């Protein structure tokens, strides 16, 4: 079987190139696009994001990507959101006094409360863990609980429905580090910057049907 064609959705993101290279290293056949017809032709979609959510949400709308992304998601195509590509899925973000997200998932994107004990942004390598008592997400195959991944963010998503939480991380309290809803998986950390652990997650995404 030939490698699946993976479209990397171009939403003015700083980490586009890093995501493209990491997916290539994970064995993917990728292309970068913002064209709805090309998104339809792809087997899988990746929405990378890095930067400020306001700029990102505005560009997503300006590039006419909202409707195509909803359609592709509804079609059952596997999708992977990264960082802002996760945050933008939610209804509402509190950055810059309020940002409207896609609303594909119920919940808000809020800022960590900063203190001397909890510096904000949350920057560095932290551990991930699948929530207890539930099936482990297939994208975590060969990634044990306690594995370290790289985070660099001030905001995090709080899903209304806790059953979508696929990965949790502790930063002065547990927060949602990744979600799963049907064909959609999205993570707050950066697999493209998380060395072998991140590449394993990307490989899982590339290889799994």
């Amino acid at each position, binding site marked *: 079987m030939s490698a699946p064609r993976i479209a990397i959705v171009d939403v003015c993101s*700083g*980490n*586009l*190139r*890093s995501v493209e*290279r*990491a997916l290539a*290293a994970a064995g993917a056949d990728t292309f970068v696009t913002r064209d709805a017809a090309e998104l339809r032709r792809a087997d899988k979609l990746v929405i990378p994001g*890095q*930067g*400020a*959510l306001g*700029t990102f949400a505005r560009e997503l709308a300006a590039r006419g990507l909202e409707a195509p992304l909803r359609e592709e998601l509804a079609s059952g195509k596997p999708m992977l959101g990264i960082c802002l590509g996760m945050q933008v899925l939610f209804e509402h973000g509190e950055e810059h006094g309020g940002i409207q997200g896609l609303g594909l998932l119920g919940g808000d994107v809020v800022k960590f409360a*900063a*203190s*001397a004990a*909890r*510096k*904000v*942004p*949350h*920057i*560095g*390598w*932290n*551990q991930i863990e699948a929530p207890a008592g539930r099936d482990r997400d297939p994208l975590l195959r060969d990634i044990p609980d306690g594995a*370290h991944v*790289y*985070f*660099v*963010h*001030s905001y995090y998503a709080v899903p209304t429905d806790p059953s979508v939480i696929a990965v949790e991380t*502790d*930063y002065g309290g547990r927060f949602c580090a990744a979600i799963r809803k049907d064909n959609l998986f999205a993570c707050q950390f*950066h697999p*493209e*910057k*998380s*060395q072998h652990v*991140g*590449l394993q997650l990307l490989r899982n995404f590339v290889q799994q049907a």
Partner: protein
Amino acid sequence: MLTRRVIPCLDVKDGRVVKGTNFVALRDAGDPVEQAAAYNAAGADEVCFLDISASPEGRSTLVDVVARTADQVFAPLTVGGGVRSVADADRLLVAGADKISLNTAAIRDPRLVAELADQFGSQAIVVAIDARRVRRGDLAAEAAQLAEARARGLPPDAVWEVYSHGGRTPEGLEVIAWARRVAELGAGEILLTSMDRDGTRSGYDLELLAALSAAVTVPVIASGGVGQLEHLAEGLQAGADAVLAASIFHFGQHTIGEAKQYLASRGIPVRL
């Protein structure tokens, strides 16, 4: 649990490493891409490129270096030196840097910090501060700082001044007040270098580090003065969130792995 970071720093001039490790296995020891890859393979949590090119040509070479590094190193990269505008920052971030670091440009135009944070998010903006200890009375803006220092039990002369241009030019700014200001403007991290300790191998200025770490709620990276592994532990115990070092790694005195094993043995959370 969030681990503390160990960050090797490479000085890059005109696209070449001018102060770096003598890794035996490297084909080209002057290639920053190979050095960054070797450090990451050794377990570095992040790599920092500090561009010290004097010319615009030299600086534009850095964008290419960052892009080639990001092509093969899937780990965080911070780039500093010569960032003066939103366009400069954009080029480096698009090439694959995760964070960009400003020093003199932030002092010349503090609004730039706010613009960059607006555009790219605070998490991508580091302000580097070069600090030098000054005698009481040498700085106009120090009174409140002195009172605070005394309240923390620091010595009465614990005041530091901001220097620019690689530590050559005194700016008349008090370090802690400046750090608070850039954090309010949107800086997401402070890279703090003690000019008194830089190059001395006698350890970080722990009073400075403790005072600054307690004064801001953004992460602080300690720099300047590391001569042995114990100094890394001291810096983290004084409140730093990450430790940056150059010479102890570059001259093969210690590997990143040894540094992290040592920190773990001292009870400091690190990624092994």
